[in-house]
């Protein structure tokens, strides 16, 4: 597989939120929302990010847009380090990186017409002037499947699916290269969800866009992504091509997650792995492997050693002490620990 230069890379990207509980604002702890994420997104691909609530997937998306500032780590876009870029320069980059939000109700200003919402970016970045703005808005609305007269109306006049289309038109208005889609279909009904997923795929192939698709719905992520990263408590535990990840999940958490998805076809059911307990509090992450308290395969070493995301071949990366390539780590003692190597 030829390695093209990635459009976006993060190195050790970390965001810790301070927990201030005492009256004097004294910091009593930290929520490690995103904890050392290194990944690369290649031009034209869709990288899916899955994980359960609180795993840090939304924070990761916002860090990439620098809507929140990272605690440490680096973000590069098209070869340029943007993690401490300021002001005017960053504005130019923001035109190239856009976001589509989860909730189509709260992410559109109710007092603005659809025209204003979509045109704002065009005007701010000086992409069109005068009459051309209206023409561009009309063109965008048509592209996302909204009637031309939508421009004069307000968000509340539209259904959830249509509002999500407005959000997509807004993101496309500034001709971005990279779009972070943060749970764009989670708030929608199944029949409408399929319409929006198809629309996203259409605009991707038409405009040659690169997507980071963040969602908790594993089947939607599989459908739209080329590669998928699974997050747990602020870290990536597994990253692989979607075929490899879904047909042969390696990390115990990925296995449990996939087995938990209810499916309609009884012939396609996996044997369910029921995890015990809940996701630990992200302000109090377990020692060693963050997944060890819930892991069925845990060994003594898992309680103390933090597993690193390691390439185990075939472009698959796993953060699990029991899935290390044989050469670089002491062999796992457990007989059921499968050595994955090629």
């Amino acid at each position, binding site marked *: 597989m030829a390695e093209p230069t990635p459009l976006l890379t993060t190195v050790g990207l970390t965001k810790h939120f301070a927990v201030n509980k005492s009256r004097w604002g004294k910091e009593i702890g930290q929520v490690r929302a995103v904890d050392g994420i290194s990944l690369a997104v290649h031009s034209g691909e869709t990288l899916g990010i899955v994980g*359960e*609530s609180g795993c840090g997937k939304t924070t990761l998306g916002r860090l990439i847009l620098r809507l929140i500032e990272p605690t440490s780590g680096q973000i590069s876009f098209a070869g340029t380090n943007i993690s401490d870029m300021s002001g005017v320069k960053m504005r130019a980059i923001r035109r190239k990186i856009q976001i589509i939000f989860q909730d189509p109700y709260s992410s559109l200003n109710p007092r603005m017409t659809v025209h204003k919402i979509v045109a704002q970016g065009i005007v701010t970045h000086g992409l069109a002037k005068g009459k051309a703005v209206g023409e561009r808005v009309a063109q965008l609305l048509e592209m996302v499947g909204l009637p031309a007269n939508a421009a004069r109306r307000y968000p509340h006049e539209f*259904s959830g*699916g*249509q509002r999500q289309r407005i959000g997509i038109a807004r993101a496309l208005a500034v001709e971005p290269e990279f779009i972070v889609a943060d749970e764009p279909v989670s708030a929608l*009904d*199944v*029949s*409408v*969800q*399929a*319409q929006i*997923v*198809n629309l996203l*795929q259409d605009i991707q192939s038409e405009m040659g866009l690169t997507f980071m698709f963040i969602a*908790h719905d*594993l*089947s*939607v992520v*599989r*459908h739209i992504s080329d590669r998928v990263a699974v997050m747990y408590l602020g870290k990536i535990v597994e990253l692989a091509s979607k075929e490899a990840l*879904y*047909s042969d999940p390696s990390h115990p958490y990925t296995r*449990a*997650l*996939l*087995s*938990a*998805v*209810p*499916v*309609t*076809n*009884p012939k*396609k*059911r996996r044997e*369910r792995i*029921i*995890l015990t307990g*809940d*996701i630990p509090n992200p302000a109090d992450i377990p020692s060693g492997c963050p997944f060890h308290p819930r892991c069925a395969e845990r060994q003594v070493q898992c309680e103390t050693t933090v597993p690193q995301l390691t390439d185990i071949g075939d472009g698959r990366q796993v953060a699990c002490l029991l899935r290390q390539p044989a050469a670089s780590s002491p062999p796992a003692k457990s007989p059921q620990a499968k050595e994955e190597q090629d």
Partner: protein
Amino acid sequence: MPPSETAGSTPLLEVDDLRTYFHTRTGVAKAVDGVSFDLTAAETLGLVGESGCGKSVTALSIMRLVSDPPGKIEGGAIRINGRELLDLSDDEMCAVRGNDVAMIFQEPMTSLNPVITCGRQIAEAVELHQDVSRSEAHNRAVEMLRLVGIAAPEQRANEYPHQLSGGMRQRVMIAMGLSCNPQILIADEPTTALDVTVQAQIMELLQRLQEELGMAILLITHDLGVVAETTDRAAVMYAGGIVESAATEMLFANPRHPYTQGLIRSIPELDTDQTRLDIIPGTVPDLRRLPVGCRFQSRCPLVDEHCREAAPPLVETDEGHQTACWKANG
């Protein structure tokens, strides 16, 4: 609805031509418009549909918890063991709730009282519906918390809802719902607010409790996967009416209504590559301005003149398989 061959006994719960309308300033929204189904003892019936299809209002109507105004049960019948609920006084209905039928809700955080301990909330329900002392009720609460798999139930009983995780809160809701041994448990989207691994825990819990306690479950959800895996029979609702109902396996293997077919096809599969998802075009019609004829006509690929003139009744197309579609009936 004729009972299927599997259940010879009389149904525990019968809902017959239920109509619940909401009178709003902009018109009458027919949220539930002629819904009929029944539920036999120890059975799990799934009620599936997208938002606004009337599945929750059906559940609230059975509990007689629809707020009036603006909502009103306009007609139909709801019988538990042959007893008509719609004729009961408020006091009589209060005795039915908890003892005969209990309900758990989608959002465990908003349906639990944040300033009362979990144990006290369960005990309160027991005291209200059964003739027991305060300490007996507390013991019952602890026992119920143990039953739903909460570790250290004595300690958890004294904790407040915010101290528990989402999954644990839903367990508390289930403990409360089952505290008076109801014959019927209505679970309205019990796992929608939960993560998929926690959802698997809760669904497993409900199935185990059903085996142990033998209650019937009416499971309301929008998730077809959950329905496929946990119910015996399923009814699909669309815009206030049931469009198809069958044994769950049959419904997924051989859906007959175009809406059910479209719904099943529009979910991406976990292990198959599809280039495009199948869609159902358009959106759900406004419940205040439902068209004459079939409710699904504006989105149906098979629509013709007949569909626009008369609404298709829910009739048996195969043994135990009912469909409300002129095309499927032919």
